[in-house]
């Protein structure tokens, strides 16, 4: 291989565009930017990380969906049942929580941007979201109670087994979202909230909505 070395280039190295960049990924650093500054301009890992996490959760529920389809496919013991009506109310509550979260996000953004805010603390909408989240979980618990009142327990039938597994796993993931929400509120009250933390939490929360609607449709069709 014919290779030669030239004296050090004053500024432009081969393949390095005007010595700028944070590694070529969403190149946002001004030319000649300090490497330290590059870190500040690099995409916040939390914004990537949350989508990576969402991908993992999608895989988990995709696996369970395929399990449901396979298990139901060859089953002679599958018993259909009607979903408790409170689930539809719960869905409305969860959707409302996404709306309140978006309102909160706008208020916090205005607050962080130095715009004037009329009215109360921006965290009140976050508290509303948190409350609606807990209300949803309480509603899910009531749905379980209604099913068990009909004699449908976890092991009664594969259809009820899948119902409990899906709703419980979704609830566990939602609890994670509620924990993240309490952290956001705490940081906001301490004035140390970073925008990316709020955004990542909001993305996750909305994903929980979408996931629940998917699960509801799946359970409605298959159970």
């Amino acid at each position, binding site marked *: 291989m014919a*290779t030669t*070395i030239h004296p050090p280039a004053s500024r432009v190295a081969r393949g390095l565009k005007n010595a700028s960049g944070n590694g070529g990924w969403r190149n946002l650093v001004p030319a000649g930017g300090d*490497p330290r500054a590059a870190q500040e301009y*690099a995409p916040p890992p939390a914004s*990537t990380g949350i989508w990576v996490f969402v*991908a993992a959760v999608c895989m988990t529920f995709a*696996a369970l969906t395929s399990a449901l389809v396979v298990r139901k496919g060859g089953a002679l013991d599958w018993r259909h049942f009607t979903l408790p009506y409170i689930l539809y109310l719960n869905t409305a509550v969860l959707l409302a929580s996404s709306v309140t979260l978006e309102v909160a996000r706008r208020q916090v953004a205005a607050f962080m941007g130095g715009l004037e805010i009329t009215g109360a603390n921006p965290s009140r909408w976050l508290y509303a979201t948190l409350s609606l989240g807990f209300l949803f979980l309480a509603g899910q618990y009531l749905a379980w109670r209604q099913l068990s009142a009909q004699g449908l327990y976890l092991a009664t039938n*594969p259809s009820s087994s899948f119902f409990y597994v899906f709703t419980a796993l979704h609830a566990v993931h939602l609890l994670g979202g509620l924990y993240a929400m309490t952290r956001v509120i705490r940081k906001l009250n301490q004035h140390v909230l970073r925008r990316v933390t709020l955004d990542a939490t909001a993305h996750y929360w909305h994903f929980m909505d979408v996931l629940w609607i998917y699960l509801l449709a799946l359970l409605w069709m298959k159970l």
Partner: protein
Amino acid sequence: MHDMSAQAHAAHAGPTGFIRKHVFSLDHKVIGKQYYGLALLAAIIGMFLSWVMRIHLGWTNFAIPGLHLLSKNGAPGDVMTPEYYLQLMTMHGTIMVFFVLTTAPFAAFGNFFLPIQVGAEDMPFPRFNMMSFWVTFVSFIVMVAAFFVPDGPSLAGWTQYAPLSAIGSAAGPGQGLGEVLWASSIAIFCIGQLLGSLNFITTTLDMRTKGMSLWRMPLTTWAWFITSIMGLTAFAVLMPACILLILDHVAGTSFFVPSNLVLNDQVQPHSGGSTLLWQHLFWFFGHPEVYIAIVPAMGIVSHILMATLRRPLLSHRVLVYSMGGIAVLSYMVYGHHMFVSGMNPISSIAFSFPTLIITIPATIIVLIWLASLYGSKMRLNTPCLFSLGMISMFITGGVSGFFLAQPSLDIMLHATYFVVGHFHFVMAVSAMFGIFAGTYFWFPKMFGRMMNDTLGKIHFWLSFVGAYCIFMPFHYLGLASNVRRYQAFTDDYLQPLIPVHRFITIAAICTGAVQLIFIYNLVHSRFWGKPAPDNPWEATSLEWSTTSPPPFDNFGGTLPVVYHDPYQYGIEDSTSDYVMQTDPRNIQSQGDEA
């Protein structure tokens, strides 16, 4: 040689308390070492189990002194029962696959070196990283705890096929609590690996330093990145499968147990579950798992080969594309583990085709390695020897894979030792050689001391010959229809094969004993080895541009700036034959791709 020891020191002081520094550390380097230690412990346990099993296979009624201490019921009079053999086999497979082959090349080396190789101070989520290790550790404790419950560990094999795995203690010793511990341990393990993968992916995408474009990342970084994507998707499937398995045990559900199953004259209280469902869920994880073990080893071997051959590989990009191709195809081939499961034969053909296709990227990688050897100025040190050894093992294991990929041949060979020989070569031993190569190569950077090269070479040659003595005869046994998973060979047609088993047992004990040389070298060098320079191998990537060992923040307060592709070896007109990634000199190289 670049020596930064004089000027580099951590700009941010690390924790000084013992607990924060060595136990619940947030530092990716400490976490990497913790993973390595866990893998070493697991490897010793796994190897001990294989010794005991091999002795039993060679001399079935031989009393192994002290074995009753491990299990009073499983080894009365120090002779193991047939069930206990299966229990040990299960634990050997599980511990080796999960806690050694996944943990060492991916989690241990990846944690330590991925952030350094991309020029980051740490992973973006250090708390998740710490949790990832400790969750894995808890999972290991739960798994090993199964040895000490009354019935012992599960006997259903590391694949845990249903319904055997799902019906509780009626299925045999270890299928009650031991089985629940197995499934719980693996579910916990999945959480640990998901947290680790999350960190690996975000570090690679978002934490790269200035100038470190994707194509400037070393092949190890690429391998860990690709592996973490596989890990994220594969472990996310295994976890719910384990949850369903646990529910079949403790809650009486019927996900995997068919109806009217009679066991020990008892009708099982389950209705209409699908046994194949478990196999689908398990192998959707299980086959990518094979590549989770081997792709990091491929990256490590490529990385080391270039430093020892003193030239870039024929193609950096094709190798990355091939590793990516393997990752994508790994999800489409899992059904080849199920050719004899009673699955529709058309499905077998559908899975056989991509299985044959996946050999193409694997072959391309091997050909790139082999062709790069030609005309190189090879430095035949221990890391180089183990890298070449890994290539040898991978080729040997890969060739037997061609046979097994075809359903018509697999039907004959599936339940025999041929498969045991195949997967031990292609996945276990080749990944182990990758781990050894990585250890000898990176030990100076991890601990600041050199390992003894002479002992390393002795370790290599004895391990290399030993591994072939153990696993090559397995192919012969398989072709002679020696069924696997049998604890004793009492049938007429199997008895003439017992001498072969005894030969394998002796080879296994000797090769296992040889590993003591490695452990001695590891421990002795850690404390009394020759102090390591910053760049002992005259290598080019970022880990060699910092001190040995690196300071707390990896680069002493100033993040490096990257100017070159990772493997600028074989440079002419220079005092040295390499240019580091951080060297600002302008290079024009014809062999350069990116």
